[in-house]
């Protein structure tokens, strides 16, 4: 580990971090969104005449929850394909 050049070290650490980051960043929002959808379906079945309002609220809330997953995906894509840290060592 001591005689690795900095580019190799940065690349290896980047690959590890993106692997773990993508797994956590897509699994956790998916679990939470599933819980929100199940509560919304329960409330639609309990009160069918407010289905439109519940659908609107559900869509907005799902897009808000999805946005954190998109932030994680964006950072991972930048790290993989346009890594700014590889040019820091000269």
């Amino acid at each position: 580990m001591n005689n690795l050049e900095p580019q190799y070290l940065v690349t290896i650490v980047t690959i590890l971090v993106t692997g773990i980051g993508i797994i956590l960043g897509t699994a956790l929002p998916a679990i939470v969104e599933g819980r929100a959808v199940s509560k919304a379906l329960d409330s639609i079945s309990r009160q069918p005449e407010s289905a439109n309002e519940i659908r609107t609220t559900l869509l907005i809330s799902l897009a808000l929850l999805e946005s954190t997953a998109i932030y994680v995906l964006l950072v991972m894509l930048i790290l993989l394909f346009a890594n700014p840290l590889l040019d820091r060592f000269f």
Partner: protein
Amino acid sequence: MQTISPQVVFLLFGLPVRNTVIATWAAMGLIFCSVFLINHFKPYLLEDLVNFISNMIAGIMNLKHVEHYLPVLGTLVIFIAVANSIGTLPIFSSPTSDLNSTVALALVVFFSVHYYGIRSKGFKKYLKEFASPIFLLPLEIISQFSRTISLSLRLFGNILSGELIAAIVFSLIPLFMPLPLMGLSLLIGLLQAYVFMALSSLYIASAIEVSDL
């Protein structure tokens, strides 16, 4: 191939013009031409569209008369929907896949929230409502900035990640594999346009807070 910062195509009076700016001009031309043609042949479709958007905004803001807010919000939803979808055409890349465009749209929402709040309540009363419990004032200021940043980054991240994934899969399996991904990014583009408009109308509704509905 779309990278994080888009490519410069030519120089106009010494300023670099990127390919997303050209796609913005194309989106504007598309909206103008299609509105002109629809108005010439079937004008009731345009009235239906304006009524549909107006009912959507009235449902979200819980107001009966939304004519003051309809221009800004209607323009946002139509432009963002067209701009997100124009990236699937061959030579264009979506205008909203550029961080500059989405920050500009989020700044429009930021200034219009304060404008509508001051117009409906008066300057002193609006500022007093910001600082009503005085220890909540830093939280209010931070929440204003974080709303703008999250609006712009949500739209930018969704559209850019769709384009990057389509480009990467295109370099692996050329003909069939990008098609479901492009369909998914069209759907996500329309949904993100609706979410942008819904969130901005919620922010405007919380800034005006009129008691008569």
